[in-house]
């Protein structure tokens, strides 16, 4: 029985591969064939492919192709624009009335209605469904009942803040004022779900059905997913190609080699070891654009040694002892940019990015660093240990470089050492157990392009990703005020004020903004990365 199903999968995949080559052959003749299929590198998604359960980029890639939500972030500017939403209205920044556009269906023919959204959100917020993005629904009234904290019993299955008015309208009541809430609705967790998801969940997860420009043609878990353009897609961002074959690679070096050999069309993760050669190998078929990712060093504020008065000088001193320019040039070959604030350039000036907000505190100055650290009472225990996970992302290299820079600035060979942790899970574990012996690697990939997302989840008291447990009353107050502000420009200004509080206390050292990079074969054109460093597949032209 199992053998039989397995054989069927293989047959499907072969058929897909055959059609792919057939289409490819036709494409090269005509140039810009909308029927041609491209292949792209992929990683095995860590979690089942449910919208509210996918929190990493590999699964997110697929969701971005097979789902469209109320809003969509413009692939170039990152601005949230209406997709399925006809209008989202509010008078008090707390209750929102959402109207869904007419004429949208899922690829199985079912209509996308207000109920599709409400069902999906209720599913995501319900504790018993184990959805890892559940906290996204935390602003909606009734979340504490469907997702009680600290081992409480779940007393409701649906969010009381969601009400369906008619087939295309529903209302959302939040438990606090949150003026930019509509702009968060482009996140995949808020995608609508068809009835099939609830009726036959197992079958749905094996072959997801959504309302995006692509449909899943076949999916062999752990090795390949074939997506095909959906002819009946009603949106105006229809796929410009026939489909995408996502192939799982264990090692991004192999994917790169495959690209070189013409066996693969698109690699969206150029291995660090190839950064030196990539321009020679690919020329202008290599792209390197800013992504909404910032790397920082967080501090263990639960440890008194790092939290006592005066330590802010030590933290600022450390920040000034790091030669960001040199490290991004030599180690990252300019695929990262020295950070001068705590957000990301993809937000744009209007969105809250402010170059140079960090000021002197982020500028390399060995003498000032030494002085600041001495004034603050010296390094706790005479040495800083920077903790990182050694299994992915070549973190070891830059941590060593940061330490070198600190050691040189302080004229002390033992001032800073790296403290590698074997696996990412163990690293997260030690952070969760509050066992960090000193500063540690903290990376943040934005969920949605808002300044709020770069500040509140990371630095607000007891926020979900405040790993260092930094807490500051002024900061919290300013964030609350910013959220209540209905005018976006004023809200952004408030957030920036909060960011200044963060700077003065050096709650975390900003290191650099990360870029997304990709390389592609000469069959492709119009390849772009969106602010989430995911290729904009629907715009890629083949042939």
């Amino acid at each position, binding site marked *: 029985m199992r053998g039989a199903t*397995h054989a069927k999968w*293989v047959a499907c*995949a*072969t058929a897909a*591969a055959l059609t792919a080559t057939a289409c490819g052959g036709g494409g090269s003749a005509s140039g810009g064939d909308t029927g041609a299929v491209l292949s792209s590198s992929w990683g*095995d*998604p*860590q*979690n*089942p492919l449910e919208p509210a359960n996918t*929190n*990493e980029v590999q699964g997110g890639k697929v969701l971005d192709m097979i789902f469209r939500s109320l809003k969509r972030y413009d692939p170039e500017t990152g601005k949230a624009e209406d997709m399925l939403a006809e209008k989202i209205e509010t008078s008090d920044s707390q209750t929102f009335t959402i109207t869904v556009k007419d004429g949208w269906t899922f690829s199985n023919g079912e209509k996308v209605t207000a109920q599709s959204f409400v069902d999906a959100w209720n599913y995501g917020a319900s*504790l*018993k469904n*184990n*959805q*890892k993005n*559940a*906290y996204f629904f935390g602003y909606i009234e009734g979340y504490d009942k469907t*997702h009680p*904290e*600290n*081992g409480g019993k779940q007393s409701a299955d649906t969010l009381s803040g969601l009400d369906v008015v008619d087939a295309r309208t529903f209302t959302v009541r939040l438990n606090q004022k949150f003026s930019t809430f509509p702009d968060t609705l482009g996140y995949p967790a808020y995608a609508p779900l068809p009835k099939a998801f609830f009726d036959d969940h197992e079958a749905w*997860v094996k072959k997801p059905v959504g309302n995006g420009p692509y449909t899943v043609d076949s999916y*062999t*878990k*752990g*090795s*390949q997913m074939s997506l095909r353009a959906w002819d009946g897609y009603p949106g105006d961002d229809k796929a410009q190609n026939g489909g995408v074959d996502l192939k*799982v*690679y*264990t*090692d991004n070096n*192999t*994917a790169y*080699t*495959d690209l*070189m*050999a013409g*066996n*693969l069309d698109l690699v969206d993760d150029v291995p660090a070891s190839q950064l030196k050669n990539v321009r020679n190998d690919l020329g202008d078929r290599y792209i390197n654009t800013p992504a909404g990712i910032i790397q920082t060093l967080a501090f263990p504020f639960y440890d008194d040694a790092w939290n006592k008065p005066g330590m802010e000088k030590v933290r600022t001193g450390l920040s000034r002892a790091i030669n960001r320019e040199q490290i991004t040039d030599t180690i990252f070959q300019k695929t990262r940019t020295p950070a001068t604030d705590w957000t990301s350039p993809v937000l744009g000036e209007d969105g809250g990015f402010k170059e140079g907000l960090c000021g002197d505190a982020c500028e390399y100055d060995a003498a000032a660093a030494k002085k600041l650290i001495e004034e603050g009472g010296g390094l706790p225990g005479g040495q800083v240990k920077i903790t990182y996970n050694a299994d*992915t992302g070549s973190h070891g290299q830059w941590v060593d470089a940061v330490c070198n820079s600190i050691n040189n600035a302080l004229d002390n060979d033992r001032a800073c050492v790296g403290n590698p942790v*074997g*696996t*990412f*899970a*163990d*690293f*997260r*574990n*030690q*952070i*969760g157990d509050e066992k960090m012996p000193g500063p540690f690697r*903290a*990376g943040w*990939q934005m969920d949605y392009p808002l300044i709020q997302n770069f500040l509140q*989840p990371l630095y607000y008291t007891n926020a*979900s*990703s405040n*790993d260092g447990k930094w807490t500051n009353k002024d900061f919290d107050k300013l964030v609350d005020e910013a959220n209540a502000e209905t005018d976006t420009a004023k809200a952004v200004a408030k957030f920036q004020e909060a960011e200044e509080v963060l700077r003065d206390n050096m709650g975390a050292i900003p290191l650099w903004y990360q870029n997304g990079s990709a390389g592609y074969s000469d069959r492709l054109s119009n390849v772009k990365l969106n602010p989430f460093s995911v290729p904009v597949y629907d715009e890629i032209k083949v042939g």
Partner: protein
Amino acid sequence: MGRYVVRRLLQMIPVFVGSTLLIFLMVNVMGDPIAGLCGDKQCDPATAAQLEKEFGLDKPVWQQYLTYMGNVFTGDFGTAFNGQEVTELMATAFPVTIRLTIVAILFEVVIGITLGVITGLRRGRPVDTTVLMFTLVVISVPTFVTGLLLQLLLGVEWGWIKPSVSTEATFGELIVPGLVLASVSLAYVTRLTRTSIAENKRSDYVRTAVAKGLPRRRVITRHLLRNSLIPVVTFIGTDIGALMGGAIVTERIFNIHGVGYQLYQGILRQNTQTVVGFVTVLVLVFLVANLIVDLLYAVLDPRIRYA
């Protein structure tokens, strides 16, 4: 013979229990796997607790182990974090790795033993020296260097093969990866056979066989080779287990989605169920391969009797 097999099978039980327990504990020592599931963020505590309950991680380790072993005997190897049954993962991974191992073993047997016989019979001649030098080079160069070099030369520069293996992983695609995987063992097999042959060439029974006037071919295949193969068979037998579990590097280079890939990913994601499940099967493979090797002795050497 029958009693011997039964005794050996019974001996496997403690080895099996011991090795699975060790693996289980080692994976557990690495800490809470749930923490790695939420990206660079803290999992929200309620969801984390719920997940722990679902995977049985909230119970003490000994209890987890007992439940796990109980399930294993009913054929249930648990569920991986991505929602797939481990048995399903095995059903896709093992056929691929078995094919890769078959290709590798074939290389070892055919090329390794042939080279071994040739050099053993012509000891000290130029052929012998050349092959000996060659094996030395192969042994001293790490597998990943051979693998990456062949991939770059054959796959990118000359375009003879595809640098990576497709999902189907057919025998044809696995020839180069199989050769890379087999390379080091192949060199050992050559050297083992060579020594063994060279030694037995001077033994009494070979001299007798030659004196009887048997054709050279028959002397070599029936008398010399059969007796010289015992150490080689032992080596190849234990190598089956090593090749299946140790293909991590080769599978990574050629992007083969076999056992090595699943183990690697399982360890990175601290997925106890996957790691323990696969290792359990590998332990079984090892034990059975060893038993078969021991039984083969009796076939090769009539003086060996099991009771």
